[in-house]
């Protein structure tokens, strides 16, 4: 493999996070959809599937990060990548704040807790995915000015 095509440590674990996050949320949605066939959707037991998918994906990401870190030689990051990280984290922030706002409105309207939790869960997942994709694009194409 030539030096040019080699993914940096930051880029590698960002890709892993993207894939694992998608797998976790897709699994969760499938479980909830299947369960909602027999029960009304706001009465579906969503808490354990959410906890398990998040914990398993989080654990897998931690393991991947650990393996990559152990195999990696040399400095793990550089100033450019720190800036990319910051840029990515901020790209998703607006959506995260927005979903918190929507959640407050849902609570104020006395909507069932199920919907509040789904709003926050999917809102923060989408926000972090936007951030991750922004990071990966920035790794490839550079930061926007």
């Amino acid at each position: 493999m030539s030096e040019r095509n080699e993914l940096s440590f930051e880029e590698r674990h960002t890709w892993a996070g993207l894939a694992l996050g998608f797998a976790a949320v897709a699994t969760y949605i499938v479980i909830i959809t299947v369960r909602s066939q027999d029960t009304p959707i706001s009465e579906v037991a969503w808490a354990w599937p959410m906890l398990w998918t998040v914990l398993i994906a989080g654990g897998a990401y931690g393991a991947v990060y650990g393996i990559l870190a152990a195999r990696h030689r040399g400095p793990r990051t550089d100033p450019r990548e720190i800036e990319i990280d910051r840029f990515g984290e901020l790209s998703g922030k607006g959506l995260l704040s927005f979903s918190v706002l929507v959640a407050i409105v849902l609570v104020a309207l006395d909507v069932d807790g199920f919907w509040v939790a789904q709003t926050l869960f999917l809102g923060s997942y989408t926000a972090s995915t936007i951030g991750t994709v922004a990071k990966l694009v920035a790794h490839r194409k550079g930061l926007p000015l």
Partner: protein
Amino acid sequence: MTMEQRSVWVQVFVYPIALLVYLAVVGARASAAPVSEISWVVPMIWTIGVMIIAIILGTIATAIAAAAGAEIRGEKAEFEDGDIRDQEIERYGDYRARHFTALGALAVIVLAMAHVDHFWIATSMFVTGTIAAEYGCIIRIRAYRQGL
């Protein structure tokens, strides 16, 4: 001092006061009635509305006071325009405060899992949101003083 910097200084005082007032109001109601029957929506809307107006008016008032002070001292009042440094400081503050917002969202999900009353969900969201904003402001003030 730019307008952004003034606004941050005003916000640093407004958020804790607003939080305490809100908690005092709903706390007083909570001691009189079960939490499931408290109307917290109206106090929250009022608090957020007054908070926004206080930040705007406070920023204008401090700008006027600064100009008046400069005039009294016989200097020319200066108004700096916001620049790229203000923007960078704002981003830096948001970056540092984002974990609080995420933590607040997580806390709410856990509370919803535990089926607690909506009152607690709303209160915890308001508290974590205000703390996140306050923390971001403190970070920004430090950045104004000590650089990024």
